[in-house]
């Protein structure tokens, strides 16, 4: 038997791409069920108003209308509100406050785009026509959109929530930190606004609700990153159906970036409406609805201070953040500005005292929740901006001040002052490699050349860390999570020796159908084309927690590794029987089960066949060869890296060109370097997009000004140079694959590198994102006016 070439660590082409790039994928909107109706939502045009009445009479007469359902009927059916799944306690121990988040607004609307009725018709156009005829009597109420203003406003958005504050959360030792600041040689401080972003997945959200009256079975097709979580929320919390009676299918999904983690009003209403009219109900968001109602990201106002000794040693970090959570707490909204943010503020540094305080504030804007990076970009941004400012203030080289304060390889495992214990890392290695690739030593010459051409050149660093592989259950449970954060995997060896892999993780661009197949194929020594990865259907795999927080490989991949262990363990028993020796005498050397020190062997395929055609089979063993595993890790994983951005600014127009962007990441062991590079590139584009292009803007009335691509600047390929990326490696110590996760790093690490480079070029210390040509021109004009 010839040995199958291994695939892990190699640039294996993505198995799913043929389907996806030839238009053969099957997205929710590609699915049509017999006799389906089309839904269109009546949405609030106002940011805050009482609903005095809804008159459906004209709309119900409109051609093709099947029915129109409102929040009142929903309440009469006893359906619950949309929950927030993570309880955060305020510093005084009290539970976070939240208004009920209705599936359809009943007596009040709280942001533009909030749905208040679902129109069901024979065609999408007829549903839309009828929606225009729904007459809603609104009573306008005063509006708050800016969290910093809402925190101190006399206007109270919800009777039960004084100060519009959901919670006031803290982490770290306040007194000890304050004390350090009293005696510090230097204190560097800044106020930043981490700009609000709109996710803009390529595929808009969509749903088809289906109900079988005969069996009282419900099926929901939806654009979800975690169909099992959707099932749990819809059954246990919203109580549409019992859990065993609902099947959630998330077929091909075109990007999520966090925005498809949550259970929204629309899919909930479609499923409920399908049971009311006993016909399938289909809805696909148009792009304007996506802008208005997909959960937005970021939106932090932060005051940060770094205390240093005379020689540049970090002594303390003090952070005060006001986080805008929008009108309601979305599914994981409370975790983002707290446990995914405050815990990361130690960064790569040995800062002994860190204290962070977060006020989470309601406004009349779309809910804000996790968006690629989720809390970690916000932490990295304020920290790396402060570090850069400290270097400039103390006239230290920005690489030296970082080097001086790095946690060193011998310090691991390292307990930070903000709850996390980093298992491993080598931060100087990524800094050194990035500086070499970025040719930092020649930067002064390049800057002089720019200057000779009338241009401004700058260099900016960012040394980020993230906690990903979101888990373990015990830890997140202690921190308030309403769910466990394991992952499940199943390996089914078919009788012919091919393998079907089922995973509770969900791929919506990540390439799991390839990387997970690589892992399993290599374990068994079989061809990757003989492994099929199945995901995204609660009817096919028992359980799952889905994909977010760069967790799929570290948690879901590890589960598959464990399930593969079990397959091999059973295979050893079968082989021992077939070869007439004891189990101890058998070893598995992919792809063969062989007798130690002998030629006698059975192939993986022969063992599979024997398991399903057990004519000659051990008495004490069940037939079949399929195993499941749940994996719950011991810790988060801690990817880290160094990004260096070099820019050139045209002072006449304010246009910034990224001349060079270097990214060196430590993601632990790599399964597929090509897919990892793709993830880094995508993350960089989103991070640099935040730094230079993207900005979600509401006006004072709560109308979304950046509500289309005419005004919301999506990054395009020609906005970027070729990225120079490389990897360093310290293997994760606590999962069997040694992997850490790579999905969010680019978005986390890049914004401060860009802004540090631009401020370096401009010779200033502070500026807010996005660094548009207009903003830069204003800064330059003000400098010239001085």
């Amino acid at each position, binding site marked *: 038997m010839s040995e199958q070439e291994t695939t892990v660590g190699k640039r294996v082409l993505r198995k799913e791409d043929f389907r996806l790039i030839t238009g053969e994928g099957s997205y929710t909107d590609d699915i049509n069920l017999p006799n389906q109706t089309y839904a269109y939502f009546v949405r609030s045009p106002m940011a805050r108003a009482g609903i005095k009445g809804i008159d459906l009479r004209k709309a119900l007469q409109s051609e093709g209308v099947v029915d129109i359902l409102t929040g009142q009927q929903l309440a009469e059916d006893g359906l619950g509100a949309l929950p927030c799944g993570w309880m955060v306690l305020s510093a005084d121990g009290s539970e976070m406050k939240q208004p009920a988040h209705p599936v359809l607004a009943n007596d009040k609307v709280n942001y533009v785009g909030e749905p208040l009725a679902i129109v069901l018709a024979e065609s999408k156009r007829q549903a839309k026509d009828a929606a225009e005829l729904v007459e809603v009597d609104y009573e306008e109420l005063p509006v708050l959109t800016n969290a910093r203003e809402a925190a101190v406003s006399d206007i109270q958005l919800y009777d039960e929530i004084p100060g519009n504050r959901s919670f006031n959360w803290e982490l770290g030792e306040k007194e000890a930190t304050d004390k350090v600041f009293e005696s510090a040689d230097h204190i560097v401080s800044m106020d930043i606004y981490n700009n609000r972003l709109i996710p803009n997945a390529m595929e808009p959200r969509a749903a088809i609700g289906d109900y079988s009256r005969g069996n009282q079975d419900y099926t929901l097709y939806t654009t979800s990153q975690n169909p099992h979580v959707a099932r749990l929320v819809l059954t246990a919390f919203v109580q549409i159906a019992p859990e065993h009676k609902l099947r959630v299918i998330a077929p091909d999904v075109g990007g999520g970036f966090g925005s498809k983690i949550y259970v929204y009003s629309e899919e909930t209403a479609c499923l409920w409406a399908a049971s009311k009219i006993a016909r399938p109900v289909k809805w696909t968001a148009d792009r304007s609805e996506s802008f208005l109602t997909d959960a937005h990201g970021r939106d932090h106002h932060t005051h940060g201070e770094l205390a240093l000794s005379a020689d540049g040693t970090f002594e303390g970090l003090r952070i005060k953040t006001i986080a805008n959570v929008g009108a309601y707490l979305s599914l994981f909204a409370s975790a983002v500005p707290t446990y995914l943010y405050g815990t990361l503020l130690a960064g790569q540094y040995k800062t002994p005292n860190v204290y962070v305080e977060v006020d989470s504030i309601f406004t009349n804007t779309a809910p804000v929740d996790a968006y690629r990076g989720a809390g970690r970009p916000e932490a990295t941004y304020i920290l790396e901006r402060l570090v850069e400012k400290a270097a400039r203030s103390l006239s230290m080289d920005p690489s030296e001040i970082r080097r001086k304060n790095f946690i060193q390889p011998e310090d691991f495992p390292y307990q930070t002052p903000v709850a996390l214990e980093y298992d491993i890392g080598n931060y100087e290695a990524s800094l050194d490699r990035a500086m070499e690739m970025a040719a930092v030593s020649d930067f002064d010459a390049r800057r002089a050349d720019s200057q000779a051409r009338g241009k401004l050149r700058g260099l900016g660093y960012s040394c980020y860390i993230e906690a990903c592989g979101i888990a373990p259950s015990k830890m997140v449970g202690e921190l308030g999570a309403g769910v466990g954060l394991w992952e499940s995997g199943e390996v089914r060896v078919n009788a012919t020796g091919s393998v079907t892999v089922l995973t509770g993780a969900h791929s919506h661009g990540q390439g799991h159908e390839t990387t997970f197949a690589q892992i399993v194929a290599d374990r068994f020594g079989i061809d990757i084309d003989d492994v099929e990865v199945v995901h995204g259907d609660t009817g096919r795999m028992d359980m799952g927690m889905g994909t977010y927080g760069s967790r799929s490989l570290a948690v879901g991949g590890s589960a598959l590794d464990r399930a593969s262990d079990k397959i091999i363990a059973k295979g050893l028993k079968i082989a021992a029987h077939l070869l007439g020796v004891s189990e101890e005498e058998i070893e598995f050397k992919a792809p063969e089960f062989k007798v130690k020190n002998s030629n006698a062997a059975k192939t993986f395929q022969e063992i599979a066949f024997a398991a399903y055609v057990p004519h000659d089979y051990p008495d004490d063993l069940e037939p079949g060869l399929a195993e499941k595993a749940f994996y719950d890790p011991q810790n988060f994983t801690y990817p880290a890296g160094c990004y260096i951005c070099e820019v050139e600014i045209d002072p006449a127009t304010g246009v910034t060109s990224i001349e060079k962007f270097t990214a060196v990441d430590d993601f632990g062991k790599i399964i597929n370097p090509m897919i990892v590079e793709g993830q880094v590139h995508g993350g960089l584009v989103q991070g640099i997009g935040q730094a230079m292009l993207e900005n979600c803007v509401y006006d004072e009335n709560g109308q979304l000004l950046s509500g289309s691509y005419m005004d919301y600047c999506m990054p395009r390929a020609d906005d970027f140079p070729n990225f120079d990326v490389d990897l360093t490696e310290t293997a994760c110590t606590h999962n069997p694959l040694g992997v850490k996760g790579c999905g969010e790093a680019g978005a986390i690490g890049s914004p401060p590198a860009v802004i540090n480079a631009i401020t370096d070029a401009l010779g200033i210390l502070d500026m807010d994102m996005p660094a548009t040509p*207009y903003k830069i021109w204003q800064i330059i004009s003000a400098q010239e006016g001085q």
Partner: protein
Amino acid sequence: MYAFNYHKPATLEQAKSLYADCEDPYFIAGGHTLLPTMKQRLVSPTDLIDLAGIEDLVGISIDGDELVIGAMTTHGEVAASSMVADFSSGLAQLAAKIGDTQVRYRGTIGGSVANNDPSADYPAGLLGSGATIVTDQRQIAADDFFVDLFETALQEGEMIRSVRFPGVSRSAYQKFDNPASRYAIVGVFVSEGNGEVRVAVTGAGASVFRNSDMEQALAGDFSASALNSINVLPDEFNSDLHASPAYRAALVKEMAKRAVASIQ
């Protein structure tokens, strides 16, 4: 989008007669403004009269001293035409910078000019070249054509047949893109020929306009440095998320200098 009737006449006469007979008709050229507006239900024509079937409206030719571009000629055809490039480098540059590839393959010169979007490119090209708009009824000088925000000298039902460009000895177009939409925050078309210098600015105001200070300065000395002392007043310039009037004023001057520098 609301339901509407669709017509695709083969001749100008059929198109006009359909227009006269329909309740609330719209001519549609490339549709790159009209269709998105209809999708948002901001306009609801009862009838769309598609001009794409009228062969007379398509094509690029030289007629005496003039370049003639049919109203239904796409931006892509203009950008790729060696005839246009030889005749007016500025016009070729302009067409190549409109939208993206998809837009250039559908969008037409007639549609763009008739719409007179304040940040569209073609109005600057026409006004900056001293072009003439030929309709089914008359000829209108560009100087008289672009009236105000989305407003032109066209009468109800009047249709553009072609645009005639006089020969100029040199021309250039410089555009500063809105980073999001890639429309012009400011676009400046400069030409010299027929005894005059023209500087036309789009994007900055409610409608395209000429800057006479710059034209005079360049008439005396056709060089970028001749514009150094020009003060572009931001009064009545557009203001939005992406640019203030002052920024637009600075960009008008900078784009004009760059346009001149490229052909001086």
